[in-house]
């Protein structure tokens, strides 16, 4: 394996990379996929962001896997991109291509070295009493670019529940009873496909703002939740920039 190198974490605008992972607690190969995502997180630090959609029949519940992580938005995204195998994922939605987990790393490397076209900054305000979260995403074009849609999604980590596994000597029965599910997609604050900005295109230094508000479900632990905001081209569908901050 290559030596793991942590890239510098600076205030400069860097091109961040979003992995949208399609997974499910009944998918035996998915822990291996999550492991690759974790390794990429170790390698790229805050430059690499993950959303894990629990979708399809692998995410169905039964007596052994009682916790429901499925969402309508996740299913819509799965259907839109034609996901049929698990684990799989989209890396910055490049070419709209659903990739197997062993393909993620090389595409992440390619995307991480791209020159950013857009600066994206998230301001948020969370009221712990009312559980209302307000998010403002500020966008600044760094070069001439087409219109983009901006999505504001919520994820939660630290969700402990059973997960199927495969070839893991510690779990010969094929189930990890206390698996730590990370980056689980919970909800979109502004719809599955987000809000359009720069409708007529943008020139360098053009700015735009997207506001979204959401009341966080009382069953969710805001301490472990993140806001993932990303902008994707309305023509190519590819993600041009992504940012992540904690809810609290």
């Amino acid at each position, binding site marked *: *394996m*290559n030596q793991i190198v942590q890239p510098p974490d600076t205030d400069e605008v860097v091109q961040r990379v979003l992995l949208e992972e399609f997974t499910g607690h009944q998918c*035996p190969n998915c822990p291996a996929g999550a492991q690759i995502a974790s390794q990429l997180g170790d390698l790229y630090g805050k430059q690499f962001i993950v959303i894990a959609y629990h979708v399809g029949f692998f995410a169905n519940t039964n007596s052994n896997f009682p916790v429901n992580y499925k969402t309508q938005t996740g299913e819509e995204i799965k259907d839109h991109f034609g996901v*049929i195998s698990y684990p799989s994922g989209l890396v910055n939605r490049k070419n709209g291509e659903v*990739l*197997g987990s062993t*393909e993620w790393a090389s595409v*992440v490397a390619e995307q991480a070295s791209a020159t950013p076209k857009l600066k994206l900054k998230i301001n948020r305000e969370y009221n712990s009493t009312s559980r209302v979260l307000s998010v403002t995403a500020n966008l600044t074009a760094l070069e001439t670019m087409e219109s983009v849609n901006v999505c504001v999604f919520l994820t939660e980590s630290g969700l402990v529940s059973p997960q*199927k596994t495969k070839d893991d000597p510690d779990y010969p029965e094929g*189930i990890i009873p206390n698996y730590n599910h990370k980056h689980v997609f919970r909800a979109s604050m502004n719809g599955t496909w987000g809000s359009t900005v720069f409708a007529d295109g943008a020139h360098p230094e053009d700015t735009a703002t997207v506001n979204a508000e959401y009341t966080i479900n009382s069953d969710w632990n805001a301490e472990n939740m993140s806001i993932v905001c990303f902008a994707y081209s309305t023509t190519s569908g590819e993600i041009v920039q992504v940012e992540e901050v904690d809810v609290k």
Partner: protein
Amino acid sequence: MDISKFKILAILFLPVFFFNNAPAQDFIDKATVQGNIYAESNYYFNDTIIGAEHVPEYIRSNIYGNLFYRYKGINAGIRYEAYQPPLLGFDPKYEGHGIAHRFISYTDTLYEVTIGNFYEQYGSGLILRAYEDKNLGIDNAFDGFRLLIRPVAGLTIKGMIGKQRYFWENGPGTVRGADADWSILQLLRPESLTNFTIGFSAVSRYQSDRDPLYNFPENVAAFAARSSLYAGKFFVSGEYAWKVNDPSATNSLIYKNGEALILTGSYSTKGLGILASAKYIDNMDFRSSRTATSNDLTLGYLPATTRQHTYSLPGMYPYATQPTGEAGAYLQVNYLIPKNTKIGGKYGTNIQVSGSVANSIDNQQINDTIPIGKPGTLGYKSHLGGIGDEKYFHDISIEINRRLTRDLRLVTGFVNQYYNKAVIEGHPGEDPVSAWSVYVDLNQKLQDNRNIRYEVQHLLTRQDKGSWLMMLVEYSIAPQWSFSITDQYNYGNEDKDYRTHYFLLNASFNKGPHRLSFNYGKQREGIICVGGICRKVPAAYAAGITFSTTF
């Protein structure tokens, strides 16, 4: 030939003019043009009981047509395919239409050269087999260059370079291959009825590596050696293959070399046939892309050493070859009890007995700290021929085929199977299935080219979805009409709500090379396999029409 046909042929096959000095008109007048067309469309209904989910596109179609041109040693062909969108159970990445296959080749006694798309197989296919199987949704044809030379009698040398088809594109890997096959006695003793051949092949795949986590080998080579002897009633053959370490999506990214051995022997005499085979496979999933999964971009073909059942219920639990590791064996005996004997009856009786088994291979941890199969390591230790403790599959079958009267034929059989669902379908935690099946097929000829056939099948199991009963009646009026009604009843399902009938009506009309058929009914979720390569078939409730023709 009218002008429009001339134009079409001229456009399609213009390049072949460069291969030959024959008069241009000969390419039209003396050429042979053949082809075929197949079209299947289904209208899908949803049925939550059987798991046939709602699909946005109610009507789905798989359509293709081949056109072949032959003139002297020149062959050319194209295939049009359209998936609008593909039928359920086929990969959605097939959606689209266009020319999926085109080639030109020239053949004479010394050599054969092909440019464009081609299929190829070296030996039994362990390290290279490009083929098409529409039922499985497989087409891993090469797009490139192929050369075959026959320098002396009995010796064939082949070489190729190309990329494999990946739906509507080519895969990322470039494949180079060479193969030599020498039928030694054909050169030394051409009059001999004994045939002894040896063969060697080498295949190399190049795929660039830009992965920041692992250093993947960009060039992966595989080699194979084989031999076969055909002498009178005996035939024996064997092939051994070895592959350089090839961490991939299907082997958990381990850096272990792969190897495979296949041995086959048969004996055949009047009324008796015996076939035996054994195989050992260790980390031999060889593809033209390290990231490919499912049936995509397969280079090596690892044949099954299990019986492929033709009847539905015994075929419910077919075995899929496990390319990452498997040891298996198969024995089949066919015996014809002579006619006009007490047991054989007036017309004789065919009996086929077969048994097959597949186990894991014996693999051990590399050391105490690295678990088996850990990504980025050598994976595990193993030795050629080592058999592991975990059983993947067994099948014990007996089938009796007997003509009872001049117009009545009976086929009946009994099958016992063990099916390790967790391994074969990749669903850890699933219970293995033990199943017993029995079937009776009665075929009666009636007057005026009419025929009626009855099938009754029963599968008994306590696992998976429980027991099934199937009945079929088929009435045909040769050579044109055929009607059938089938019902599979999952009466043994633990959940009473799912004890449902899967009925299917079918009617077909044949005239010459044309065939038109209609079907309506339900199809259970399952797996279909051909030669150990399988495709998952989802539950469906559909009405469909199929048309095929050749010309």
